[in-house]
């Protein structure tokens, strides 16, 4: 690995992201850009140096989270310097912005849009491609602890639906702030391009000890189903019951490893969407449906 640093931008899941890169790079090859403006007296986080200004490196490799507007700004900053950027979804604060970022990057080679839990959804989609006939319905449900940017969780839901059943044709979505000051729950349904029907549910409003991930693909001749609570790791204590998944490497660690490998070899980032625009367009169509309470064609 060269001498350039990976710059972590934004405080979303910072501990997991920093830990993932620290395992793969020398500690001083990572920097965090202003993770917490209220605590600038700190100059390290988990032993990682905190940078207060964008570095002057010729080739910046950035892992960008944070609020949506600053993601776009940071992405353009990295790309204009000829760098590579892994940008946590959604890519920009509008469809036009996302398209502009992709255009500025000259395609997806320098911009990575990480996919969540790739292995599970890819396995389900692969399994559904043979033996169950034409897909007729897809259900994807993702109930997780709160995140700082709800659009990121919802984007991953849309991405999952597209991965499982193909491009969406139309979407209807409803969102609400059920237990917090910002949106924490989204229900959506609609049609795939091939007429199959989908349902997606994202919620961060459930009790912290509860999580659930459901993947269900039905076809004319069979079905594929996954329920995290039926197959997950259970921990019961006096404080309650914890449901989680058991990993050898967390999704962040796998993502970081794939990203750094792509950086070293100048290859495509394997954990990114190869063609992100259909997902991005579906995501913004769902956002419009939420705003207007109407069905939106894609």
């Amino acid at each position: 690995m060269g001498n350039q640093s990976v710059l972590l931008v934004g405080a979303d899941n910072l501990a997991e992201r920093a830990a993932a890169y620290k395992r793969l790079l020398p500690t001083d090859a990572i920097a965090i850009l202003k993770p917490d403006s209220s605590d600038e007296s700190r100059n390290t986080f988990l032993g990682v140096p905190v940078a207060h200004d964008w570095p002057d490196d010729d080739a910046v490799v950035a892992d960008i989270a944070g609020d949506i507007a600053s993601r776009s700004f940071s992405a353009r900053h990295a790309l204009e310097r000829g760098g590579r950027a892994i940008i946590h979804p959604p890519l920009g604060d509008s469809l036009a912005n996302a398209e502009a970022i992709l255009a500025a990057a000259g395609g997806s080679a320098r911009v990575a849009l990480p996919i969540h839990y790739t292995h599970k959804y890819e396995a389900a989609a692969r399994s559904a491609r043979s033996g169950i006939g034409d897909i007729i319905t897809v259900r994807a449900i993702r109930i997780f602890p709160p995140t700082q940017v709800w659009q990121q969780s919802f984007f991953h839901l849309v991405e999952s639906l597209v991965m499982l059943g193909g491009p969406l044709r139309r979407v209807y979505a409803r969102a609400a702030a059920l237990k917090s000051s910002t949106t924490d729950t989204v229900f959506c349904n609609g049609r795939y391009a091939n007429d199959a029907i989908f349902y997606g549910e994202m919620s961060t409003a459930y009790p912290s000890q509860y999580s659930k991930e459901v993947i269900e693909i039905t076809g004319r001749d069979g079905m594929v189903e996954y329920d995290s609570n039926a197959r997950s790791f259970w921990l019961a204590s006096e404080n309650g019951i914890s449901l989680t998944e058991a990993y050898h490497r967390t999704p962040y660690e796998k993502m970081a490893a794939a990203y750094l490998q792509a950086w070293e070899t100048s290859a495509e980032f394997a954990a990114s969407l190869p063609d992100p625009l259909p997902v991005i367009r579906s995501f913004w169509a769902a956002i419009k449906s939420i705003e207007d309470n109407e069905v939106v064609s894609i």
Partner: protein
Amino acid sequence: MNIGAISFDHGHQNGYVSAILELPSAQLVAAADPIPEQLQSMQAMLAAHPEAPDVKVFSDYHELLALDEVEAVSICSANADHAQMTIDAAQAGKHVLCEKPLCITLEEADAMIAACRNAGVVLCTAYPCRFAPVAWQAKQRVDAGEIGDILAMHGTNHLRPFTEGWFIDPQRSGGGTIRDHIVHVTDLMRWFTGKEVVEVYAEGDTLKRPHIAVDDVAILVETFEGGIMASTDPSWNRPENWSKWGNVYLRLLGTRGMIEFEITGQALVRTEAKSGAISSIDTSESMNYYLLKDFCETILAGRSPLVTGEDGRAGVAAVLAAYQSIAEGRPIRIG
């Protein structure tokens, strides 16, 4: 309580007959169906029963209604016949347990409710899921405030596809999986929240078996009074060798917690090596038993049943809104 069973078009009638045979407060006295073969399961149950009652059998249900000893009837015909049979039974002075969905149109529902009210007889919609032990316990916990106020719900009711019979004849069924299944989930959601559905957006189609004339897959996103979010998957999209039955599942998010349950989730699974058949055997207490028990106690005590004709009407309203949503491609307001 002397009960007559009218029509075995819907297989649920056999479950209700079984419950009647077990109930100390009920007696099966007559059965009517124009198709003799549809009575075979009932006759087998009677043959196996140690104290089998003497059940009069008719091909025309009007003859059953003419019997003075019949005090109440269980109607399990094709959906399109529910209204006329219920009105005839009410006019004959018989209390009515009517299979879900209550009927096809809201006008029929209003006529059924009015006929029973005018005759002074009970009209109960057969929503047995309210009587499943897990649903009952969940309701008690919700009513005790254990999860706070309900904010969001997701429910399912799945089945293997129907490929023949009145279920896929739109003239007799009034529709497919939406007509058949959302009424169970919608009723549970209404029961748990005490709120009505106010808006429905539905996607539905005939995709599992494209040759049939009714919808077999659907997914609904609904809004209840107070802005409660809900969604329902009622599809007949399971494979023919699917081991479960019903998959009536509900997940409730409240202000202080959550509950999820599946009515038929705790079942024995039986696998046969030679045939490859996999089947599940429900091990919970019979929800049909408690449905019939409540029906009989309602009549004997002169009180209102747990599930009324109005509850059946609300299910029909949700069904009609879903079909209108599909036809017009937009969310539909109810009421």
